[in-house]
């Protein structure tokens, strides 16, 4: 049957959770307690850092981010029948601690403590990293890659780390590198913000926007690979951490 969606099967059978303990969620000590519980009870399937294994990835999946507290609580407490996710005998308080940890895993990077030197990271961003060729912060920089002004305010830390070190693991939607040869003879090089059978939306290296109909395009080359280099080997471990620190501090709402 429709296996893709069965992980939620049976949730419906259980009563509403006890929300009296949900206030634990805001407490850093709960997050830490949740981390320890996770290591002993969950990491076997979901990986030591929640990155997934036999069970799904809990860091980047929409399942966690889009689920409300009650759904998460029920999933942990009662398991997911039809899957390998078992029910737990942990008391409600500890279940909430686990959820506090899960939420922290998925919290925007700006809200969590990140090691590294922010100023040094900024230097790398502006200088040897060459990041601004493609990315903009507060209007400064290129437009071939996603705007980073609110990166730390909108993305969890692990996603930022992954984007820096393993950029090809997950392509940012709407930034596929492409070359379009127009029937007019003109050639446009840039990224496709969007394309369909009928239309192309391209931003070129100069930041100009082109809204094209399919009938105007003679030939096209679209790359599935991210144009972003991996900084795994380009930077030292310390430099990587500094860059990640700087990126994690980027929040549109912090500049006020």
């Amino acid at each position: 049957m429709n296996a893709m969606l069965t992980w939620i099967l049976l949730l419906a059978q259980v009563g509403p959770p006890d929300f009296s303990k949900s206030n634990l969620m805001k407490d850093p000590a709960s997050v830490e307690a949740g981390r320890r519980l996770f290591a002993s009870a969950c990491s076997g399937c979901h990986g030591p850092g929640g990155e997934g294994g036999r069970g799904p990835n809990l860091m980047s999946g929409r399942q966690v981010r889009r689920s409300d507290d009650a759904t998460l609580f029920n999933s942990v407490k009662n398991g997911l029948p039809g899957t390998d996710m078992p029910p737990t005998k942990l008391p409600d308080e500890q279940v909430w601690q686990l959820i506090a940890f899960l939420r922290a895993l998925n919290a925007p990077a700006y809200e969590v403590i990140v090691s590294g030197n922010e100023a040094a990271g900024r230097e790398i961003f502006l200088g040897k990293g060459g990041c601004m060729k493609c990315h903009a912060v507060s209007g400064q920089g290129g437009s071939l890659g996603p705007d980073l002004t609110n990166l730390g305010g909108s993305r969890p830390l692990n996603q930022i780390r992954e984007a820096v070190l393993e950029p090809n693991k997950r392509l940012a939607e709407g930034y596929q590198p492409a070359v379009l040869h127009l029937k007019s003879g003109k050639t446009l090089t840039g990224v496709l913000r969007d394309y369909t059978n009928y239309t192309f939306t391209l931003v070129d290296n100069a930041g100009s926007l082109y809204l094209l109909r399919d009938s105007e395009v003679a030939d096209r080359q679209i790359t599935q690979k991210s144009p972003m280099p991996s900084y795994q080997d380009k930077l030292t471990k310390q430099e990587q951490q500094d860059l990640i620190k700087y990126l994690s501090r980027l929040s549109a709402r912090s500049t006020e």
Partner: protein
Amino acid sequence: MRFGIWMTLLAATSVAQVKYEDILQGPNQHWLTYAGSYSGQRHSPLSQINAANARNLTTKWVYHVPDAKKLEATPIVYDGILYVTNSNQLHALDARTGRRIWVYRDEQAEGQRVNRGAAILGDRVYLVTTDCHLVALHRKTGAILWHKKYADTKDGYFATMAPFAVKDKIIVGMGGGDSGARGFLAAMSATTGEEVWRLWTIPGKGEPGSETWSREFSLKWGGAGTWLSGTYDPALNLLYWTTGNPWPDFYGGDRAGANLYSDSLIAVDADTGKLKWYFQFTPHDTHDWDAQSWPVLVDLVYEGKPRKLVLHPNRNGFLYMLDRVTGQFLKATQFVDKLDWATGIDAQGRPVLVPGKDPTPGGTRACPAVRGAANWMSPSFNPATGLLYLPTLEQCDIYFSSTKEPKPMIGFAGTGGESIPAEPGKFMLRAIDPCTGRRVWEYGLPGPATAWAGTVSTAGNVVFFGDDNGQLVAADARTGKHLWHFGTSQNITASPITYSVDGKQYVAICSASDVFAFGLFEPAVE
């Protein structure tokens, strides 16, 4: 050939910047402000769609704004790109196809509210978030340039309005007056977002006007919000802005006096934020009759002399005509039949009150209803017909009051207006000669009286408006004759606009959850 035209446009797009002078020109192929122009007339010179061919209108595209339940935005359009807002969101669309170019979402903003639109200047578009941040985005990529917080939700403020671009400034206002928050109007630098000036709509202690409030408490918690966009006269360099009701809305016992500058039209120097003049429509209001209807700037011959005028259809049921240079009151005419709180407006512009119409704990019947005879939905003015096209609501309410101690930031203090089930409200679109107040024609809008739909007027002698049954209607601007309609099957709570791309005129409007664009039917070509 078609291709050639399009490439030319693109070339233009890549360098084009919206200049103050462009906005000064008023609507043409673009629609650059909430009301299309600084004058607030919402009248477009486009005439490709006209009274003779409007029957051939057809849907060109529909864009669904995900999760939208009640769009109230007026889109703006520049160079073939349409910008429309929802709560903490701005969507940039290809104005020919409705295809999304980019979308901005501020997921950190507090709460969900309606949003009435964006502003554009230079290569930037601007919106306000629910929690009073002014956000500047790159108009082609949606990249964030900056966020500026200009008021705090902790003080009871929120924002829903379309920011207003004037010269090098972005003018913003606030909501929250219905729970006491003290009104202000602010100008921010369009470049940096720094605040340039701020004008409080309730005077500070000891300032002129403060004597119109009996309690000092009200000077901090008196309402008079500025939640709608405004209009502007470039020659006089004056902004025309409307202010909301005094607070508490329905009980005036603790705020004896006229309560300046609530329920007023204020004229403000755009460079300095200094109050040039004000006119208060409903002194000491106890019916929640915010003055947030549109101030329409018109130049007309009145009593034999050409005058610079401002027209204002107020919630209280009177259409006011003022001299917009001096604020001098010239005339007021009643534009709804259901009006019983005043017998008229005297020579000074003061209402001649009917006693016993204040809200009481047991309830008092009064007309118009709390929703007002007019409201924020846009009227329009066609200089060729000389008519003001005004959505009006014929309705009365029972008004209740309470003398409980009002607590700021927690709402109405147990009071309000309740509709009368046996007397359902009824919308009418009225074409009014502003000089005489005469209703030249009217168009009945049957329905449950739940619409909040405005109008747009065009040189093609077509007036477009939303009705009370989810239809966008085109009527002859001269006669009110029905020309065309399209059912969106949704409540319309926004005002239509018109623009053109590649030489083709479009009409667009938001329904509850979608943006619809219409144009003349044309057979497809191979």
